[in-house]
């Protein structure tokens, strides 16, 4: 008797769930929650940041019912392919390597990388500061600028977040002169830069700027060196999706294009990064 009751309830509940799903599609978006200002967790545990606000805006445009969850950066792609969520918005660059496994909508931002170093260290006056190079279109000049930086980095310790395009960039281009240390989160390499365990942090410029502006970092660190985009760094940050979810990809692309066109991305980008990172469409 009790069993029948439970069964009845379960059927009723699932019928209700199906009804809700047809009304508005459920999309679960994974983010890291530890990559300020892209996405981070507030002290009370709620998620916040550029990508959280952008995700809400995109979902509204797609008329989807979105849930945003936090997921460790390590394993965020296997989690997607395993179907634990439907999309990734976690400052993830679109690279050829990743595109073999998942597909991307976007990009919704494009930003160069850079080195964060303590003021007054011998790295502080690195050549090429403020210059930008595209590794795809301007490879020769990009490599020449890198060669100028290399002698300065000889024997230094550079911190990067593991499993990122920055880690790949460092291992590909800098491992022959410097020691590369890989950290789980950006907060960890920031702490070690502050403690003086490492000489420089290599990451994307907007993230470094956010670190620089933290009260405990303010006025003591600067972003130096040439800034790179493209190539091994990918073609900007996009929404990671399963390859078979073609329809969702189209909808995300349309929503991103609309958000770029009406200035929403520019507005959010200026709010969170202090500069416009909208990719040239």
């Amino acid at each position, binding site marked *: 008797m009790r069993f029948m009751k439970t069964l009845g309830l379960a059927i009723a509940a699932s019928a209700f769930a199906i009804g809700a799903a047809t009304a508005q599609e459920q999309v679960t978006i994974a983010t890291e929650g530890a990559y300020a200002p892209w996405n981070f967790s507030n002290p009370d545990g709620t998620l916040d940041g550029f990508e959280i606000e952008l995700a809400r805006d995109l979902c509204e445009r797609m008329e989807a019912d979105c849930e945003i969850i936090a997921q460790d950066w*390590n*394993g965020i*792609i*296997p989690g997607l*392919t395993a179907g634990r969520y439907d999309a990734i918005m976690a400052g993830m660059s679109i690279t050829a*390597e*990743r595109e*073999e*496994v998942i597909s991307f909508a976007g990009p919704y931002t494009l930003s160069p990388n850079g080195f964060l170093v303590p003021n007054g260290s011998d790295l502080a006056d690195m050549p090429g500061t403020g210059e930008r190079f595209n590794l795809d279109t301007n490879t020769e000049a990009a490599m020449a600028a890198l060669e100028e930086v290399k002698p300065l980095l000889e024997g230094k310790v550079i*911190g990067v977040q*593991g*499993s*990122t395009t920055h*880690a*790949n960039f460092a291992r590909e281009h800098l491992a022959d002169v410097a020691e590369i*240390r*890989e*950290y*789980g989160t950006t907060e*960890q390499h920031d*702490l*070690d830069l*502050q*403690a*003086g*365990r490492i000489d420089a942090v290599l990451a994307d410029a907007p993230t470094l700027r956010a670190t620089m502006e933290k009260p405990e970092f303010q006025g003591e660190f600067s972003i130096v060196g040439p800034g790179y985009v493209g190539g091994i760094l990918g073609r900007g940050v996009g929404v990671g999706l399963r390859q078979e979810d073609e329809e969702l990809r189209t909808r995300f692309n349309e929503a991103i294009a609309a958000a770029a066109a009406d200035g929403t991305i520019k507005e959010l980008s200026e709010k969170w990064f202090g500069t416009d990172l909208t990719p040239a469409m």
Partner: protein
Amino acid sequence: MDLAFLWSTFTTLIEGVPLLLELAALSLAIGAVFALLLATMRLSNVAVLDWTAQGYIFVFRGTPLLVQIFLIYYGLGQFRPALQDLGLWWFFREPFYCAVFALTLNTAAYAAEIFRGGLLSVPHGQIEAAKACGMSRAMRFRRITLPIAIRQALPAYGNEIILMVKATSLASVITLMEVTGLAHRLIAQSFRAVEVFVVAGAIYLFINFVVTRAILMIEWRLSPHLRQPPTAEAPMKPEPAHARGA
């Protein structure tokens, strides 16, 4: 099953084994000395020493090793000026030393209780017999107490060694690229979490297989009194011919 990929994964991950063994061996060796000290403190019947050791063991057994590693590495990193004044920064600057330090403190707490149990398990009768034979306190400890205590503590301590081999995987959170750290990196490049972790798991399994065999062997050597004495029907070893005539 992609054998070529499994093999290349294996050759990549195996590069992390020397670091794994260094971490485990150093922390177990230093930790065992420290643990013996703690166990003696616990059994000293001096209240202050006993409580100090109890407090230490309570804290280090009661908190996760991951938290301890984080606190020692990132926590102490915040106190650089103070550590520099004390002349200790060279030590805490290096992730390797911090990892060994954390693993040592952790294993010492567990091993102290294992050693204490071993020392307490020595039968009174045997100690009394040794006393009756006129052995001094030091000789009693060396000849009677310690061998029996080691024999009793060995199975539990073998567990602790295995746990420590696995605990080295936590060193990857402070940038040390041992087997697990390399596995994470490989997954980021290949996105093949299952294959990579299966190979990583197999490497740990093999190391621990060797560890368990070694412990079994030591156990066997330390317990001749528990084995069946050789009998006429089933001799352990044939007697050498020249001994028979004598």
